[in-house]
Structures are given as C-alpha cells and as structure tokens.
C-alpha cells in the first residue's frame, strides 16, 4: 500500500456515515466505566472439586460461581499443567492464593474482575484499558488472542472506519486511518466469525479459524443487495417483480431547501410527476400523479406512511424519512388494492435498527427565497391612465372618457414631488418580500439486541414571498421497538406535528372561489393608490378624478384581512409480532391518526383614505362591525390490521413466502364553525369578544368504514425464477349492500436470465445483471363517491313563512343501486439490466393501464338535473399507456466518485369510453382528457386589406384574425382545432437528470428536470388587452406589446379591440415545455478529527439552490405551475445553506 497523506485519509473518511463514526467513538471509549474498589469480592465462598483439569477450566468454574471474570494472558498459563483441588466454602482470596502461588502468579482485583500477572511484574496496562491507579501495580494483560489486519476496497484503497464485529456479540472495533484494525479476543472466541462491514459495501463474514491476520477487501455494494420497501414488508430489489421506484432521503435531500417531501420528489422517479402550483408558504406542496391521469375522479396516489394510509405527505418531517417507495404497477400496489389504482407512495421513517450505539444528529437549513419570475405591474400611474385613454378611445369620444388629460398631467408633475398624494406605487414591491425557509432538526437514534429507537424534533419556518404569508411547523417523532422475548417483538411509532399558518387569500394573491367576487382584484391595483401612510396610520384609496373608487389596495387586504390556521396532528401505531415457529410471524398492528384544525379570522377595520382631500373615501375596506369567525375541523382515523407471514425454503433452491392480512379502517370527521359580527374591540379575536346580535353557526360530521382481506405469495426458484401473486378484497361503506366488495387480484413473473448457466458465458462479459418481469392485475378506486351519496336521504331546503325560517325537505337523490368500485387494470412489462459490473444500470418499463367503470355522474335529462344530483354510475374508460426508463452510471476515477441517473417517462392518456353525450369541448373519445382545443390564428391584421381578405369576423386592423377551419364562411366554435397529443393540464413527457460528483470531502450534485407535451393559453386577468375602462392595473407589457400604428410589430393585438382578441386562439397558446435546474448542491464534509474533541463525528456544510435556471418559451409566470392561470403566486427560487452535524 502506498503511503497516503493524512489529509487524503481524512477525505476518505468523509465517506463514513455518521453512524459508523459514532460506533468508532464508542468502541475506543469502552472500559472507562470501570471502578477499582471491589475487595468484598474476595470474601465470596468457593465450592470446588477438580481433578486433572486444565487451569483455565478451573478459572472458568470459579467465574461461574462468583460472577467475577479473570483477565490474563494465555502466555501466563501453560495449558498442559493440570490442577487438582478441593475447596468447600473457603473465601476466594484463599482459593486464589492456593491456586496462583505455585504458578508464580499474582493478582489484582477490580470490580468484578481479577487480573492475573506474574509476580513482581511492574509493566503497565494500556491507558485505554485500565485506570491509572492500578496501572502501576499491574502487569499488562497480553490479550489472549488478537486479530489484526487491514480493510480495503477491491482496488486496495484502505477503508477508514469500517466496522469489524465478532459475530453474535457486541465486541468489535473500527479500522483506523490506514484501514488497519486490531481486535482482541478471548481464547474461546477463536472459532468465531468476524463480520466486516462498511456502508455502501457488501458485508463480508470471515471465519477467524485461529488466524492472527485477516485482510479483507470489501466489494462495493451493487444493486444485488439493495432492499426495497414494499407494501407490508421489504424485498431485495433483484427479486422484485413489480415496478417500484425508490428515493432515499439522504444528506443531499436533507441539504435542499425543501418545504416538504412532495416537492422534493420531482425528477427522481420516472412516471411520478410532482408539480407545484404555487410557492405560497404553507400551500407549496406538489401535486403527485403516477403514470398520468388515471381517472377523472381523484387520481392522486395513496400515501402510506409506516403502514398507515391517508397521511398528509406535506406534513412529514423530511429529516425523519428514510426512504420513499413509489409503487407503480398492479403487483406492487395491489396489497393496497382499494385505493391503489393511482399508485402508492410508501414512506418509511427512520428507526435505530442495527445501530448498536446511540447517535445524535443536528441539521439546519436556511434558505433565501426569490420568485422564479414575477409580475411587473406598472408603477407609473399617469402612463397607466394614458393607456386607459387609448383603450377607451376605441369606442368613446374624448369628452365622454373617464380620465381627463388634466388629471394625467397633474399626476405626472406632482408625482415627482408628492408621493403621498400623487403616488406611483410599485405594488409588487410593496406586497412582496424575500422569502425565507428555515429548517432545524435534532434527532437521536440507537439500538441494541433488545431495542432500538429513533427520536426527532424538527421545526420549519417559512416566510412566504407575499407579506404576511407565514407557515411554521413543529414535528416530533418517536419510533421504538422492543424485543419482548426470543420470538416476540413490540414497537410503537408516534408522530406529532403542529402548524401555524397565516395567509390572506386562498391562493395568496388571488382566490378562485366563485363565492369570493373579489378573488382576482389584483388586476385593479392601480398605481395611483398610496398603500399606507405610517404618519396618519391610514390606508390609501383612489384619489384621481374619474378613477373608480373600487380600485384595489392589496396592501390593506394582505395586512388587515388575514386567515389563520392552526393544525395539530398525531399519528400513532403500535404493533406486536410473534414467531411461534421458524418462518412464521404473526403481527397485530393498531394505528390511530388524529387531527384538529382551528381556523379563525378577525379582520381589522379600516377605510380608504384620500390624502389629497384628507378625508375618507366611500370605500370601507373592513367595516367597523368587523366580526370574528372560527372553524374547527377534527377527526380521527383508526387502522387495525392483523397479518401472518410465512417464509420457508424447500430444499436449497426454492423459497416461498406468503402473507395474509386482515384490515379495518374507520374514519370520523367533524366540522364546527361559528361567526359573530361586531367585535368589541379590534384587537380582540375570539367569538366571545363580539356582540351576539348577528351570528351564524354550522356543524356536521361523517364517518366511513373499509374492511379488507389481503393475500400475497412469493416464490423464488433457483434465484432466477420469480413469481408473485396478490389479491385484495375491499368492502367500503360508501356503496350499497351488494356492491360493497371489490376483488383486486394481480400476478407477476420475473426471470433473472443472467443467472442462467446457459447464457453466462455470453452475457458475463458485459451484462452483470438482467431481469425480465411482467405483471398484470387490477386495482380499485372509490374516491369519486361521497360518504353518504348512495343512501337515499332527504336534504334540508328551508323556507320563510310568516317572517321566520321553517323546515323544508327535498329529495335530491336518485340512487344507482349498481354503483361500485372503479377498476383499473395494469399491465407492466419491465426489463432491468446491469452492465459492466453494474456500473451502468438500466430499468425500462412499459405499462398499459386501463381504468374501467370510471365513476361519473350519469347523464341525466335536464328535466331532472334541476332537482336531482345525477346519480353516479360506472361509465367511462380511460387508458394510460406509457414507457419509463431509468439509466444510471456510477463509477470512480481515482478519488473521484461520480454518477448520473437519467429518467425519462412518456405517458399518453386516452379517454376510451364515455357513454354520455360529449359536446364540443376539450373532452372527447380517443383523446387525452382535457386536450388542447383552439382557434387557429393568422396573426394580427395590419391593414383593412388583411381584414377583408380574411373570413368576416368583426375584426379591425390590430385585431387577431382567426382561420375559418371548416370553410363555412364564418368563424364560430366549429372552427377550433383539436390537438390529439397535447394536454392542457399536464405534460406527457418528463425528464429528470441527477448527477453527482464527489472528490474527497467535496460533493457536487445537479438535478435537472423538464417536461413537454403540455400547451396552455396564456390568458389571464393580468394580461387582458380588453381591460376594464377604469381601475385596471396595467403592466409594462401593456405598454410595450399592444399593436398600434406606431408598433405594428406589437406582440399583442390592439388595446380595446375585438372581444375575440381574448378568445382561446393559438395566438395565446404557449408551449409549456421547460427544462429546469431544479437543484444544484455543493457540499463539503469537514474531516471529523478537527472536531473530535467536541464530540463531533460528522460535519457537512452544503450550499444549495433550487430552481436556479429555467429554460422555456412560456410567457407566463412559470411553466411548471398547475391550475388557475390567474394564480399570481410565483414558484420559489431559493439559495440555502445547510449544516449537518453528527455526534
């Protein structure tokens, strides 16, 4: 081995996990706990009768009687010397004298230990082993036996901190900076085995067999030993026959400034789309969708955390997560049959299993957040009014226009000197701020033979980009397992979290609810309003002559109209398992989820102030009778499940395992809300602090039950033929009797063809692993049906008689007695390949997923829809076909480790059956659900000649001209074109590229993510060319882009032109394709030696940036954003610094 510099060695050591370093510390400190006073031990009475025994056997017998251990070097005792002795109740001191003196041995007593030495030998013990007090007197113990050696990798590079443990004991050590180790063993331990392990490497068990030197080269762990978490268990990846994607939450994931795990999954698993709709603090979770839109009902995957379904993925502490498994096909998810039609996301939290010793970890992550792209409202009121004039001039004579030239001139002049009275407010600047995300987490874990634990507390604080949009969450977790006996275990998992959320409107800047008529008022935030005057404490309103008093002051809303929400959740599960015979294990598990959410608002009264006239305007933002409203949502869910696992090997080559599960789930949810007008004082905010004259209340509850029977059989023959069969029967209380139960079976086959001796000579050269797998099965979904929807009930519809409310009941329901589960059948064909000793791995999947009996409101005659809700019926079929691939390359060049994973997925959604009449629109047979359907434009008419040449459509120069696609001489809805391969809501193709390079302690990683196949109209309330003739907040684009005679190349049609200019024309149809540098992270793991005195074993510092760069041609806010085009909340770009320390 070549000589290495210390520095290099430390870099090498960086690859050691925290756990291993902790192990190292623990081992080096062993023995400190001893105590030197134990003379009383010598008075114990000894009864012994030996004849021709070896000396060590005699000592052993004494050890048994006294519980005192003898420590000595084997050299001190000749094994051939036989002992004959008889003691009956003599004190130990006497017995020792009797035995030792003839052999010229002396002894020294420590608590429960007697050290044998040669008489008169003054050589000292190693300071590591014994305290100084006895060092002077005692001869060093020359260990009975010591194994030394070196642990390296296969390239002969030493591995620092590899663990060497005597099998079946806690006795062990760690390799040093040169990979060397020394382990002292008792005589009788010579026949044991040593277990060499190092994270990321395959474990090696070596028999000592009396050897003094054992050098071991560990092989880097290939995919061969990778274990994947699946429903109700885990499985070696090589034996997996389903399609499962895995994300390990490692220090790199923790190093990212992620508000939640859902948004962190983007780009990691092919077929899983994780798309954020907003960067709003508290509402920035990503919408997860596996393999396209499976149904027109809820198509979100089922989230299962530690065996408990229905947990809010966004409330889980990212630091607590060990792995995330994405179950994509029927086989892997069918054990969750009923609600697994859209895939399952399994999250496993950390435990202390196999850790032996306790470790303590602290991590912190602080991020600065900026918008990826923001809006640019024009902070120039005179210019905005001029645009209003231009817009009005298309239809209104100058005299009749609203805004007068004098007003504009006055504002231009005085705006420069009197910003209070003539403001040119830059709203975006006022209502935005730098966002921040702080995440602190402290955890401890450990384990032993009997038990293991993981505890963690975490806090997350998000300061949104919008003022007064704050979210904070506290998490605590306790996972504990305990071995009750040799064949019985119990354990408990507890997670509690608590959050505090403040926001103004539901989407931050906007609110799409039809009940909120002011939901998109941001478009009315004119620059001529002073947000707030700290001197007088007044909030500004309109002041310009002719301005509409309803113009919007967003600042007052975001300051005075805030919603607050506190949510508390607790999830607990407890299990008990018992293995009465080998291979059989019974488990009972009980889980309880509880939540409680309290929301309140108490708006602060304020009124629009006119600083020019020094008087209040008519607009009362919040009236003096402002009240308070409270609402409470609470509920719980229980899960009881009992399972039996059986594993057995028949002969050497047949491995069978079976699982049966019975499960019950029960939900209970309730709501209660109340509000009162007239708060007694603006600062008070509880219901009792308001008058009682005007108040409202509401409350209700609902329950649901689900009963399931689950079975699974796995068969593995010769390590190459794999078979799996599953079924699940689910009964749901949502359906009427007779339709409650759904049966969802699946089966899969796998063939590890590289294990075939026949192919080995050919394949071995390049293919190290190859597996073909195919699975088929059905899954269910009941999400479209309401809890009581299938019960014939009367709904209240009250009336007023004689001035008072009277009871009224109506029948809204026509029940479809045959409604049952929506079924999805999935065919999955997969190929897994590992080339060049698994440096290159590829996993390719093809799937065909057909949802049948899609549960939809039936097509009801208009003669009935006015009275009855359309009963649901199983009518539609939706097919998703797609292909996914993951390609990973990992290698090492000298000290540089690098790897890259590319994952690509393509999905085509087709609506195949819909027994309902489909009118012209974006839903049609054999097309994607909500496909692109658009008028085609031929650009902006430059001249009247252009207008006359085109089909008559009421256009003028400056208007968009549309094509008469069907040639009937007029433009109407029939002239829209359908795009069979483009979707409005979601992309068809996703790409993720994850690359890392590490060199010594430095690691660098990039995550690129992109998608294509989606087009959408870039039309919203804020780029309207036909804006209202008053109070419109124009943007810079309204100045630059509209067509006019001086700007014939304008990107937009003229202002105030034809109403068709804002129609869904290809003119506004933008390609949402993008490629985004989702994350870039640079980390440095500082050599622990520098901090060892502080007890620090690992220290990693990382700088990370999210969404740093986006390449797209989309003109709107963000191409990744889903949902409402009017939602103004940008997606965050963030820069963060994370520190992870282990003790």
């Amino acid at each position: 081995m070549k000589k290495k510099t210390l520095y290099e060695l430390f870099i090498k050591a960086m690859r050691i996990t925290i756990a291993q370093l902790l192990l190292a510390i623990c081992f080096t400190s062993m023995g400190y706990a001893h105590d030197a006073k134990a003379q009383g031990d010598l008075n114990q009475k000894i009864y012994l009768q030996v004849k021709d025994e070896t000396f060590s056997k005699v000592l052993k017998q004494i050890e048994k009687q006294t519980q005192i251990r003898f420590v000595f070097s084997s050299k001190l005792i000749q094994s051939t010397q036989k002992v004959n002795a008889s003691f009956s109740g003599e004190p130990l001191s006497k017995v020792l004298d009797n035995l030792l003196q003839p052999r010229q041995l002396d002894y020294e007593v420590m608590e429960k230990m007697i050290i044998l030495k040669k008489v008169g030998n003054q050589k000292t013990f190693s300071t590591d082993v014994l305290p100084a007090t006895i060092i002077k007197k005692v001869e060093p113990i020359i260990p009975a036996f010591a194994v030394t050696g070196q642990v390296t990798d296969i390239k002969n590079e030493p591995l620092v901190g590899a663990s060497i443990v005597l099998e079946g004991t806690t006795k062990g050590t760690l390799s040093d900076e040169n990979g060397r180790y020394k382990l002292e063993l008792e005589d009788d331990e010579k026949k044991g085995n040593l277990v060499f392990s190092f994270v990321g490497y395959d474990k090696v068990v070596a028999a000592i067999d009396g050897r003094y030197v054992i050098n071991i080269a560990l092989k880097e762990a290939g995919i061969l030993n990778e274990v994947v978490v699946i429903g109700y268990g885990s499985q070696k990846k090589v034996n997996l026959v389903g399609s499962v994607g895995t994300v390990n939450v490692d220090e790199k994931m923790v190093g990212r400034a992620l508000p939640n795990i859902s948004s962190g999954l983007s780009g990691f698993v092919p077929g899983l789309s994780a798309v954020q709709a907003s960067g709003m603090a508290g509402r920035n979770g990503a919408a997860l969708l596996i393999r396209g839109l499976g149904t027109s009902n809820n198509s979100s995957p089922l989230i299962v955390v530690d065996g408990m379904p229905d947990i809010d993925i966004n409330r889980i502490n990212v630091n607590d997560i060990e792995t995330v498994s994405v179950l994509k096909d029927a086989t892997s998810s069918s054990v969750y049959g009923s609600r697994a039609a859209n895939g399952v996301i399994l999250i496993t939290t950390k435990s202390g299993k196999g850790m032996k010793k306790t470790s303590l970890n602290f991590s912190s992550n602080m991020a600065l957040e900026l918008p990826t792209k923001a809006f640019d409202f024009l902070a120039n009121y005179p210019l905005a009014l001029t645009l209003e004039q231009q817009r009005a001039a298309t239809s209104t004579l100058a005299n009749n226009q609203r805004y007068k030239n004098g007003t504009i001139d006055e504002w231009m002049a005085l705006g420069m000197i009197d910003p209070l009275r003539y403001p040119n407010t830059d709203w975006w600047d006022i209502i935005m701020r730098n966002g921040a995300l702080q995440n602190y987490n402290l955890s401890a874990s450990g384990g032993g033979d009997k038990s293991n634990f993981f505890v963690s507390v975490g806090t997350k604080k998000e300061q949104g980009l919008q003022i007064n949009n704050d979210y904070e969450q506290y998490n605590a977790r306790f996972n504990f397992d305990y071995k009750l006996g040799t064949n019985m275990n119990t354990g408990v998992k507890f997670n509690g979290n608590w959050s505090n959320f403040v926001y103004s409107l539901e989407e931050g800047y906007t609110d799409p609810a039809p009940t909120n008529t002011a939901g998109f008022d941001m478009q009315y935030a004119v620059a001529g309003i002073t947000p707030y005057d700290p001197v007088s404490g007044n909030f500004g309103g309109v002041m310009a002559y002719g301005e509409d008093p309803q113009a919007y002051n967003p600042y007052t809303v975001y300051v005075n109209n805030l919603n607050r929400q506190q949510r508390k959740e607790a999830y607990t599960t407890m299990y008990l398992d018992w293995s009465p015979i080998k291979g059989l294990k019974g488990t009972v598990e009980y889980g309880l989820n509880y939540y409680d959410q309290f929301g309140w608002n108490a708006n602060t009264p304020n009124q629009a102030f006119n600083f020019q006239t020094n008087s209040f305007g008519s607009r009362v933002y919040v009236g003096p009778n402002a009240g308070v409203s409270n609402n409470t949502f609470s509920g719980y869910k229980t899960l009881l499940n009992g399972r039996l696992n059986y594993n057995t090997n028949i002969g050497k080559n047949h491995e069978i395992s079976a699982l049966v599960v019975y499960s019950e789930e029960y939900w209970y949810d309730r709501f209660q809300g109340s509000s009162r007008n007239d708060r007694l004082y603006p600062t008070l905010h509880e219901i009792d602090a308001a008058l009682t004259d005007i108040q409202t209340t509401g409350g209700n509850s609902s329950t649901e039950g689900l009963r399931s029977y689950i079975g699974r059989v796995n068969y593995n023959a010769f390590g190459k033929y794999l078979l799996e069969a599953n079924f699940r029967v689910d009964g749901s209380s949502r359906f009427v009797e007779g339709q409650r139960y759904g049966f969802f079976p699946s089966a899969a086959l796998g063939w590890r063809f590289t294990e075939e001796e026949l192919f080995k000579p050919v394949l071995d050269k390049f293919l190290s692993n190859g597996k073909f797998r195919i699975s088929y099965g059905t899954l269910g979904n009941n999400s479209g049906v309401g809890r009581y929807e299938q019960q014939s009930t009367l709904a209240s519809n009250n009336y007023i008689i004689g001035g008072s409310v009277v009871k009224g009941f109506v029948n809204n329901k026509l029940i479809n007695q045959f409604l049952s589960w929506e079924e999805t059948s999935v065919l999955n064909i997969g190929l897994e390949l590992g080339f060049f000793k698994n440096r290159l791995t590829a996993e390719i999947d093809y799937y065909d997923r057909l949802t049948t009996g899609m549960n939809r409101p039936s097509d009801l005659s208009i003669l009935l829809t006015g009275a009855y809700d359309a009963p649901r019926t199983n009518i539609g079929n939706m097919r998703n076909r797609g292909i996914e691939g993951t390609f990973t390359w990992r290698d090492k060049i000298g000290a540089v480790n690098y790897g890259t994973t590319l994952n690509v997925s393509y999905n085509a959604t087709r609506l195949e059956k819909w027994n309902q009449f489909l009118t012209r629109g974006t839903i049609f047979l054999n097309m994607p659900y909500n496909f692109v359907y658009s008028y085609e434009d031929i650009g902006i008419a430059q001249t009247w000649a252009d207008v006359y040449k085109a089909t008559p459509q009421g256009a003028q120069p400056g208007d968009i001209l549309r094509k008469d696609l069907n040639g009937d001489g007029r433009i109407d809805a029939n002239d829209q074109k359908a795009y069979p391969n483009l979707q409005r809501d979601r992309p068809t193709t996703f790409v993720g590229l994850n690359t890392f390079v590490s060199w010594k302690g430095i690691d660098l990683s990039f995550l690129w993510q992109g998608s294509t196949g989606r087009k959408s109209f870039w039309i919203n309330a804020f780029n309207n060319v036909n804006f209202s003739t008053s109070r419109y907040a124009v943007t810079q684009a309204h100045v630059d882009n509209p067509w006019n005679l001086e700007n014939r190349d304008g990107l937009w049609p003229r202002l105030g032109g034809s109403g068709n200019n804002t129609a869904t024309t290809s003119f506004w149809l933008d390609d949402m394709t993008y490629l985004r540098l989702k994350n870039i992270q640079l980390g440095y793991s500082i050599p622990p030696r520098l901090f060892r005195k502080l007890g620090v074993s690992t220290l990693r510092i990382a700088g990370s940036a999210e969404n740093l760069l986006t390449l797209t041609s989309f003109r709107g806010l963000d191409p990744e954003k889903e949902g409402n085009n009017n939602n103004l909340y940008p997606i965050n770009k963030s820069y963060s610094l994370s520190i992870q320390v282990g003790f």
Partner: protein
Amino acid sequence: MCVTLQISCRKNLLDQDPTTELPANVFWKTEADAVTGLMGAYAATRPCFDRDYYFDGQGEYVRARGTSTTSGNLRLGDAYNNGNYDPTGYASSFDKMYRYLYGAVNRANYVIFNVNKMQAEGTTASAATLETILGEARLLRGMAYFKLISMWGDVPYFTNVVYENTTVAELARLPIGQVKDSIMADFTYAFDKLPTKASALGRATKPAALAFRGKLQLYWASWNKNGWPELKGFTPSATVATTAFTAAAADFKSVINNYGLTLYLNGDAGQIDTLGGADILPNYYNLFTPKANGNSEMIMVFTHGGTGTSQGEELMRDFSGRSHEGSQCWVSPRYEIANKYQSTVTGDFVTPLIPMNPTTNSAARTTLNSAVNPKSYDNRDYRMKSTIEWDYEKSIGMASLASTGLVPFIYQTWAIAVTINGVKYTTYNTDGCNSGYVFRKFVRNYAGQGRSDGDFAWPVMRLADVYLMYAEATNEVSGPQADAIDLVNKIRKRGNLPALAATKTANKIVFFDAIEQERIVELIGEGQRSFDIRRWRTIEKIWGGPGTAGVWRIDTYGANQQRYYQNTSDRTYQQNYIFRIPPTERDKNPNLTQNTPWE
C-alpha cells in the same frame, strides 16, 4: 385479534349513517311532514321567480349589465345565471332557467305524489290540510309550467315522480295548448282548495290561484290574437283569443272584487319630499321595501329572510351601488325611462328632457328641461322619485350594517366630496350605471341588513298588475270599459297623477297605449316588460324592423351608450320571440324538437 383490540373491531363497519340528512323512508308520515315537504317545494320554486327583474333588461327601459347570481347555487340565482339580459340575442341563454323550472316541477310532483299517497293510505292528518298542501303544490307546479310555455312554447310535460332517467329521457314536447290545459287544471284545483286568506305570509291563497289562472288565459289569448309564428304547430285563433280574454277578465274581476284586496294604503300617493330630499318618500316607494311585506296588494309572494337566515334576497346588491353595503348596481334604469313619467299637473307626458354634458357645458345644470338640471324633474309622477334617482337625488348610504348618511347621486362622479347647500356629502359610488340614473325602487332606506340579506317578499302577482291585466283583457274584448278605466286611474292616483284624459280612453287603441304606459311605469323592475313585449309582438315597434339602423340608448349627458337592432336580421327577431330548447338535451333526446328560429 378482535378481542385484543375491541375498540376498533366494528361490527357495522360498512353501515355508516348520515348525520345531517334524513333517511327518506322515515318521512311522509305526519301532517307536519307534508308541510315540511311543501316548504321544500316552495324553496325550490322561489329561485325560479325571485330575480325576474333581470328580465327587464330585455326591454327598453332597464339595463341589466350583469347579475349578482352565484353559479351552481340555486338559491343565489343559478336559474338566472349566465342569462343574457340585453334587448336582443338573449333567448339562447336560458338553459339553466329551463332546468330549474323543471326542478320546481319535480319538487311539486314529489309533494303531490306523497300527499296523495298519505291520503290513500289513510293518515291522521286532516284531509283539509292535505288538500291545501296539494293546492299549493299544484299552484307552484302550474306557475313553473306557465313560465316554461311562455318562454319555450311547447314543452315536455310530466306530473309523476321520476325514479329513473329513462322515464323522461325521451319525452317529446307537448303542444302548448295541452300544457296550458293541464296548468289550468292545476290552477283550478288550487283555486278550489286554497284558503281565501293565507295562514301566514308566504302561503298561497285562493285569489293567487285565480289571478294566475287569469294571467294564463290572458297570455293564451295574446298568443292567439297576435300569433306565435316561431312556435311550430301553433295555429292562432281569434275566436280562441276572445274566449280566453273573456275568461281572463272574469277571473281578474273576481280577484279584484271578491276578496277584499286593496292597493297598498288604498292606493294613496302619500307624501313626497322636495327635489333632492329623501326623508319623505311616496307610498309607491315603500311598497317595494320589506316594510310593506304582507300587505294585501301582494297577492302572491316568495318570501325571504333577513340576516342569519341564509334566505335573503339580493335586491339591494343588484339595484344599488357601492355606497349601499358595497352593492354592485347590476341593474339600472335606462335614460329613456325618464320621459315616461308624466306630469302631475297635466297628467300627460312632459317636454322631453334634453341631454347635456355638465363637464363641457357650464349651463347644463340650469338649462330648462336639461336632463342634468334637477328642476326638470319637478312635478312628476310620484312613482318617478320612488323608482329612480337622478342627479342630486339622495338615498341613505350604508356600510357595515350602519347608515353612513345621505349620499347624493351625481352621474359620472364616484364617491367624491361635494357640498350641497352648505352640507358636505360623499357622492353615490357606482361604476355600474351608464344612463345617468340609478334605481331607488327596491333599495332599502334604512340600514341593518347586508346586500345579500334582504327580507323583501318578492311579488309574483300584484293587485296593480291584476288591475292592468283586467283592463287589457276587457279592452281586447269590448274596448275601454268604465270599470277598467277606473282601475287604471286608481293606479295613476298612486303616482299622484290625474285621471286619464278622455282622449286616452277614446278607443281600444289609445286605451291600450294608456294601459301599456301604466304597465311600463308601474311594473318597472318586476320582470313583466319583456314578457309583455313578446306576447304583444312589439319588438319591431320599439326597435325598428329588420335591416334598420336600430336605436341608441343614451345617457343624460347625451353620449351614445349602446345601439340595439342595428341592421338586424329577420331571424334574430324571430329568435327574440321564442327561447331556444336546450341543445344539449336535444343531443340526448331524439324526440325533442327545436323551435323554428333555433333549428
């Protein structure tokens, strides 16, 4: 397993009962159940009628620039949602109204079926009570079908409770005559069974059923007299018309004479404040505020509840501006209505107003007959001040359920500070009016209720309307009759107008004009005008015929606002006379025919 964890092992895990809804099988047992069921039917019928004021936008005197309706919420006006309330091009936008009128039919059918069943199965409920309930349900069903035929002509007709879509999915339209006869049967049954006086405000009465029967016959007579060429298969008949007019007149006459009904406060005009004052308002104004709820002029109403009942009307939200609890002024009077208000002195029309722009013409406020000179509005029909506000008229502003004092309306100003006679005011704030007038009718002049919490009982049948319909019916049969003229004069008296001059009652034609004039002024904002225009077939008379220049609507400043019927095709006129059968339903139902101009 279950023994160890009993808390979770639930025997009836899959049988979960609803907590706020009533299982249907326990209902329809008692008299109270029947009443409760009937109330459900009332609540379902109300929202098909209580925003009829939007329909006035299809006439020439009211502009409905939009609605305050909430999509998807029937109680909050979904039936009217998405409707077009312009004078032309509207008739294809009432699929929702069609849908909810049938909703009301289903609700009524459900009550009728179950009450019949109760009767048949024997019950402790009193027979008379059940018959009254049946009468009310049949009246409601008749009203729904009546509205359906008056908009769509022939319509599908069914009276049974529907359990499955297939029962009605392929129903064809029944000729209007047959539907009319069935409605007559419902109204007649209701007339027979209902009490003379309602047990409480909100329950239907005998005169209500009778008035509706009269109105149905009046409409039937109008269609037969004037024709309905857009309705395929309908052959008008003058004989039928005369019979129907006669029958209508008889029903109206009975309503007028036999039930002791009087106009509000005996039709007295009441007091009126000076120009600009708003303290004393005529009786006609008060009639349309909740203060007048329950008076005998309102023959049939749909009631509403105030704050906290979740049953409020939104009249204020639609009819007034931001100064009034943040209202939205969706509905406003057009400029052209002003000249319809006659002089209390002459009893005839005044010199037409002259629109003038005060921002460019400093004399505009003082010029004689200038539309922006408040003096031009002196000595007018009391109903003018009760109905509209012109420049410098005031109303009570309100915010946060409290009064903010008087707000003067000054067109083209929005909440600016003004000083009038030394008193400082903030002007009426609305961006919703483009004529120079806003409504006062239906706008409360006292604070305390939000814009969606009105408790006004919306009239669907009013005695003044019955008077005018009686006058119309008798005039059609036999020309101006003394009792009819007297009734018209009673209504004019409410506006403090003198009786009609002899020239106005000289013959059938001039008397009809006088009746129409009163209908315009008296019933403005009550959803009658566009139905009158269609049954009288007078669109061409108002807006000019096909291919003409059309007619501008202007404002008090003289600015052109909107022009209607410019170079309009014959087909568009036809389409404005009959509504379009919902095409989505025709796509599904092969037997459902379309009205001629919509084919």
